[in-house]
């Protein structure tokens, strides 16, 4: 399959999945060149190729090394608190009045979201590569906190790049990172937000690549990151799959997750890719409306382009300049999306929907009030869609929602919005 620039070519290649061989094929990505179908790759300066090659090699070894896998499992169990529960949300189910709603509780992980699964995994890889230092980008601070946590746990030096604007807004997470000994580096370039922090982290990596590992926080960036992050996050879907088999003796009918960069969704979906009876639904941030700059629905409104080292759907203007984005939830406020999601979208294996700011707030409220679980605003997008969907489905159906994180971090923001 040729990788062609320009949009028409790519979009034309979307196809309906129709056989189980096809489903298997969809799960056998990326290829050796880091491609998920047309997407992915390594669009990075030559200087980084060395680090990416090294990372890929070490990762492949680690993947097949029982000792590495056991160590990872032990940290996930004893430190992170895995496995996370699969919880029947009885009152949400009753409220929706249709399919049964289950929550996969990533909010109960140490640091309160799925991000830690990846941070611990990559920190162990960094140790294997004998690197002494970690860097990361962060928006609202969740991935920054997860990385700072892993750095403290394993004794790495650590620096987290964060847009100056976000440093100001996310005082609490900045405090946490610093308390764990991480240097928080405010980025003043560009729009002073996540995108710019990512640019800055990549750049810094170029000059420190020999002793530093860059922990990317989602299934984005150049190969092998989208694959590595997906694999480390796949513990979510693997556990869920097994829990469903144990508890219901069958697989769920639908699995949902919110999609920012797409790591919690990828981790949840990937182990179900070959289960063609399982519907997969990703929920993007609809922001205020569908005008450019007012949302972060990359798959819904974007088109294939190159950003932060890989080819994927991206929100750009006609020149290829990255568009401004907006979402009520900082973790979804990103103009790109992981290349595997673009692939799943084109292959029609995953359906992508859009939930706007107001609907997300509604999801936040209903879940807090009926289940006593304050969701992250990211998660709240998926909750809204889940409630909608459950209402339309029969009572015997089972819907599993990837409950990606807790809402502590968002309380101040929701309170502020409610006061307005």
């Amino acid at each position, binding site marked *: 399959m040729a990788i062609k620039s320009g949009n028409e070519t790519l979009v034309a290649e979307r196809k309906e999945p129709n056989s189980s061989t096809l489903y298997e094929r969809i799960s056998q990505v990326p290829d050796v060149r880091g491609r998920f179908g047309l997407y992915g790759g390594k669009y990075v300066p030559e200087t980084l190729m*060395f680090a990416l090659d090294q990372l890929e090699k070490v990762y492949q070894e680690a993947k097949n090394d029982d000792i590495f896998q056991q160590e990872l499992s032990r940290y996930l169990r004893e430190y992170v608190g895995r496995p996370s529960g699969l919880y029947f949300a009885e009152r949400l189910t009753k409220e929706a009045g249709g399919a049964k709603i289950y929550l996969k509780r990533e909010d109960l992980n140490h640091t309160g979201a799925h991000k830690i699964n990846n941070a611990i995994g990559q920190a162990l890889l960094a140790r294997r590569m004998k690197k002494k230092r970690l860097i990361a980008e962060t928006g609202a601070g969740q991935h920054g906190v997860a990385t700072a946590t892993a750095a403290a746990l394993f004794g790495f030096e650590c620096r987290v790049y964060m847009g100056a604007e976000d440093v100001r807004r996310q005082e609490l997470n900045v405090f946490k990172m610093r308390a764990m000994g991480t240097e928080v580096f405010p980025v003043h370039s560009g729009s002073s937000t996540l995108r710019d922090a990512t640019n800055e982290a990549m750049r810094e990596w170029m000059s420190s690549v020999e002793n530093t590992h860059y922990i990317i926080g989602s299934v984005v960036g150049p190969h092998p990151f989208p694959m590595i992050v997906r694999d480390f996050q796949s513990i979510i879907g693997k556990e869920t799959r097994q829990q469903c088999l144990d508890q219901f003796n069958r697989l769920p009918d639908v699995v949902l997750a919110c999609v920012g960069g797409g790591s919690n969704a990828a981790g949840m979906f990937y182990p179900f890719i070959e289960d063609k009876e399982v519907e997969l639904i990703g929920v993007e941030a609809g922001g205020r409306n569908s005008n450019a700059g007012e949302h972060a629905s990359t798959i819904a409104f974007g088109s294939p382009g190159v950003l932060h080292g890989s080819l994927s759907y991206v929100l750009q203007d006609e020149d290829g300049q990255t568009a401004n984005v907006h979402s009520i939830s900082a973790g979804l406020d990103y103009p790109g999306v992981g290349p595997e999601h673009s692939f799943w979208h084109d292959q029609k294996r995953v359906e992508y929907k859009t939930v706007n700011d107001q609907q997300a707030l509604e999801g936040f409220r209903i879940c807090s009030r009926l289940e006593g679980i304050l969701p992250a605003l990211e998660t709240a997008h998926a909750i809204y869609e889940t409630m909608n969907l459950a209402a339309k489905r029969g009572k015997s159906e089972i819907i599993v929602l990837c409950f990606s994180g807790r809402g502590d971090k968002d309380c101040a923001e929701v309170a502020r919005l409610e006061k307005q």
Partner: protein
Amino acid sequence: MNLHTNRSTEMNLPQKISAVFTELRSKKQTAFIPFIPAGDPNLNATGSIISALPRAGADLIEIGFPFSDPIADGPVIQAAYTRALNQGIRVESIFEMIHHLSSKPGWKTPLVGMVSYSLVFRPGVSKFLTRANQSGLSGLIVPDLPIDEAEELSAAVREHHLDLIMLVSPLTPIDRAAKIAKYSSGFLYCVSTVGITGERTELPSSLQAQLKSIRELTSLPLCIGFGISQPSQVQRWKEYADGLIVGSAIVRRLEKANEIGMDSAQSEIVEFVQEFSRECKIR
């Protein structure tokens, strides 16, 4: 795949860049290549500066296409890009400015676009290259496109009579450098340090060894970029390189346009380029 070999059969096409190096080599001189970001503070200013550079001694000129998310550029260049983008600069208007320059009577200095692959990919490679060629660009540097992803572009440049200048980094293994050289035409861009563009006072000495080994693989001119900031560095590197590229140090002077006015900034830059090229021309 053996593009280099293929290309050499087409050497009769107008090869402005290699012609420049051939001439300089014959004079035992080193090329001086200044970098100017388009649109900072505006495109008129860019055009005016670039027009002045050949006379100041520039042998080639790199023109930076502002990109919203540059990962290969340092803070100084990114800030220039941000200023340009905040003015609403469009890719098409950059091509127009370039066309305006290159079609000036007597214009000889090859112009090279430094552009993120994001901007090339978006309209489509062929469309972008068509406009590049029409505008009078002689070549392209796409700093975030490693050879691994360069298949489509490197196949297309030939058709559009453009050079594709690839980069080699200090971390590039020698066999990979050989491959990169094969994808490259015009010259090979040798990144001086592990890192991003920006000014440095010292370049690593391992660079000398690397340049020597690369020489053995390719006949392409080798130019050093990233981190050259002072005319005093020229003598040290002349014997290893065919050209020296200076970016951030120039942009930092451009930055001052706001304070001291565009005319004074332009004079400073011209002077700075003169100093550099004087060093490059001394035998």
